[in-house]
């Protein structure tokens, strides 16, 4: 086995460890038939051991890849997103040893799994660095950001648990709607992973020639059956499906197709869950929250922000500005990625003022924590893939 093969096998190992640990944590917090939680800590210990083994494998993946490529593996969508999954789990492990909270594992690990699965949909071969990235600031800036985001995500996880416990699911309310909305979104990510893995495994490929927005001819390869076609597209692959709808040049129909497939598969999956169980997903999870200490979740929510916020400031603004000054000759240029780092920072500044100045604790704080994570994910997915700028990696 070459080192790079060892590296990717370690990532697989981490993935499966997290998968198993999720279920063990789920079992731990479920309580026994009598409704008591005597064995929660014992099963929690088993689960955290599996998680730590997975995490060590994950770190092994990271550093072996670093050795192979010669640079910190934080330089494209696959590497950054995988690292984010890793810091998420790292953040959870620290919290587990501080507060003994198995329920947090049951929420964080599946999200980390989804993020790593999402990452592996991007090209994962070791790639060379363009000149702008050839500096130690790559490792310094990006690793600080990814650690900060992993910690801030803990605030969202604690917030989500808080909400799953306190939101009354028996009555129609805005809270119930949005809580289910969050869970529906997670199912959509599963839809994305399923659809892209299926079409990748079956080697689907369909090449089109089209006219781009600058009136130039170009070709594009679809890896999913074309629901939407590019502007004036002509298929170059024989016996392939023709697009159902043609779009104007402005729209990237290939990405729109991917989004549509994910929505489609994800929604089917969600409807199936609802039909089979006859319950909202939140209702399925809520029984697992019985033994949750709300005050502790609120505390974790806040602690995560007061550690994550200064770290985020340092990584995403201070180090980012220093590097931008060296590479692009200006520390700030209103590039979309820069703007979204500022948006995230302003959001957490607002969170802190509301919590410390206006007494927004408990449920309000929990919602804010979850929204903060949504902004981070928006920055990761939409800003990288749809809003083009200097930071477009993929």
């Amino acid at each position, binding site marked *: 086995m070459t080192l790079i093969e060892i590296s990717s096998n370690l990532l697989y190992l981490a993935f499966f460890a997290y998968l198993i640990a999720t279920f063990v944590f789920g079992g731990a917090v479920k309580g026994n038939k009598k409704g008591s939680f005597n064995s929660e800590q014992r099963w929690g210990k088993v689960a955290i051991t599996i998680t730590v083994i997975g995490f060590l494998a994950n770190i092994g993946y990271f550093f072996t890849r670093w050795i192979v490529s010669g640079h910190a593996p934080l330089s494209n969508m696959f590497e950054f997103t995988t690292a984010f999954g890793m810091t998420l789990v790292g953040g959870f492990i620290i919290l587990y040893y501080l507060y003994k909270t198995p329920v947090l594992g049951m929420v964080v690990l599946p999200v980390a799994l989804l993020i790593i699965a999402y990452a592996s949909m991007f*090209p994962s071969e070791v*790639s*060379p660095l*363009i000149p702008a990235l050839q500096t130690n600031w790559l490792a310094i800036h990006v690793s600080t950001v990814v650690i900060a985001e992993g910690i801030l995500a803990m605030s969202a996880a604690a917030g989500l648990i808080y909400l799953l416990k306190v939101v009354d699911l028996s009555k129609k309310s805005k809270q119930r709607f949005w809580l289910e909305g969050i869970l529906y979104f997670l199912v959509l990510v599963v839809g994305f992973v399923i659809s892209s893995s299926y079409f990748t495994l079956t080697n689907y490929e369909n090449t089109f020639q089209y006219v781009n927005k600058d009136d130039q001819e170009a070709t594009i390869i679809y890896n999913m059956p074309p629901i939407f076609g590019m502007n004036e597209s002509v298929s170059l692959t024989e016996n392939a499906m023709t697009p159902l709808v043609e779009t104007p040049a402005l729209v990237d129909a290939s990405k729109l197709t991917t989004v549509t497939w994910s929505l489609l598969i994800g929604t089917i999956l969600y409807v199936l869950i609802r039909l089979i169980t006859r319950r909202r997903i939140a209702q399925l999870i809520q029984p697992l929250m019985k033994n949750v200490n709300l005050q502790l979740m609120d505390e974790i929510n806040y602690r995560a922000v*007061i550690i994550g916020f200064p770290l985020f400031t340092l990584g995403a603004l201070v180090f980012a500005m220093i590097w931008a000054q060296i*590479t692009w000759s*200006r520390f700030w*240029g209103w590039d979309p990625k820069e703007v979204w780092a500022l948006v995230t920072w302003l959001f957490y500044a607002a969170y802190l003022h509301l919590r410390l100045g206006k007494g927004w604790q408990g449920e309000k704080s929990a919602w804010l924590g979850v929204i903060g994570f949504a902004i981070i994910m928006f920055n990761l997915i939409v800003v990288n893939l749809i*809003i083009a700028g200097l930071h477009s990696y993929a």
Partner: protein
Amino acid sequence: MENVQCQCGHTNPPGTKLCESCGRSLTEKDQNSKLVDMRYEGTARRSQTYNKSIIDKIWNFFSSVKVGVSIIVILLVAAAIGTILPQQAFVPASTEATIQAYYADTYGSVGRVYHALGFHDLYSSFWFIALVGMLAISLVIASLDRFVPLYKSLKNQRVLRHPSFMDKQRIYGSGPGAEDTLEKAETKLKELKYNVRTDKNGLLAEKGRFSRWGPYVNHIGLIIFLFGVMLRMIPGFYIDESLWLREGETRAIPEVPGYYLENKNFKLETYTGEGEDARFEEAIDRVGTVVKNYQTDIVLYQEPEDSLPGATDNLEVIQEYPIRVNQPLKFDGYAVYQMDYKLNELKAMTFALTNKETEESLGELTIDLINPVDTYELEGGSTVELLGYYPDFSGFEDGEPQTATPLPNNPGFLVELTTPETPAGETSFITIQNTVEPLGENQFKLTFQNADTRNVSGLTVRKDSTLPILGIGGLIFMIGVAQGMYFNHRRFWIQQKADGTILLAGHTNKNWFGLKKDLDRVVDSAKLPAYTDQQDEIDKAEKAEKEGEVSS
């Protein structure tokens, strides 16, 4: 408004909630509440006291947390809107009209609306800058409104407080004590690194007061940062120029008096996928070529001090340096960055003067495309005269050839060819692969032989004297954040009444768990009476009440 007189005789400024001297509650509301509101020590904040004049109203507006957070949220949303479509700086159009047309053509009606609302230049729009300005004002006013009274109050703290202040603290306990209780408590508290002050029958132990200044320190950092950003509008603080430098060319650096730069060589290297780069082979196969290096080898010159301005004949070499991305050339507070390039720009073109029929050559001439000369004498008595040169020929307008730019992208030449056979001269207009004979059929023509090319490097010249100020602002911000977030201000008040009863109260601005841990150790070693967390008691009572409602 009038000063407030406390029972203890102390005169407090108007708006005070807790007596500055003894801590008694001064308003009826506070007197009736179970716990005292300790935020800002119950001092009189200007914003909570006056609301008459226009200045009061402005002050109150900006000192409100609600207003501050609203400004933050509006800024956040506005900043996000600016990323929906690219800003004008990233758009391939330069004039007002072409920019507007670009948004309309590329993004349709969405683009038209976006442009009409001014979102294409959102971050330098008047209202966006005004919002940042309001945030700055809010930072200053909100901080002053809280900091000044808080500082005064903490500085003039009395050791002895009235029992009604003590028993309204969240942490409170009372009970019998021994003769040496206070002394033992003092020793233990000092051991725990508290500053202890005693007065008659009481003590005040305090730790981490500086953490209370954290928020104000980080706000000062932000203000310094914003001030630094503003400074760049003042001439001299900030320079941003671009310089296109051809290989072999020496030019004065714009806005940097006395300095010259020569481009000796520009190179662009790509990853080969072989040798060292073999590990990247798969990635290179997928995406095509990946650039490894952009580099301009330069020589930096300086004019000697006594030379005439503009004289370039006796420049002194200061240094030779390869400018690369991430490795700008730095000198004398300036920096020159590798930002752009153009490969293979035409440098010179060589033509042969030939007879159209016999294809016999009468000699060759080379035209420098940057500084062409007017007349070219060939051996054998022929002359080529350059009547007009159009470096970037773009077509005819009213019969006159036009050039789009001064760059030799598509050179056009209007020439007069004189040979011994045609002494009157023939006129010809030549562009790449095309010859026009405007004044009738000619006997001779210029035949293209070859062209010389060279690379052009796009450099950015930058000076930013505000950077140290921004750095200091950022540093102060980070210090303030750490100071306010990772340290707590803890206080204990202990008093022994004449009958030996000990009164004990504690307060912290956050992390009550840590405070209780400290107190437990003191209680242990000094045999203090047991204490309760009165907030917990209130919460429990409320919860019991709620559950009672549900079950009944």
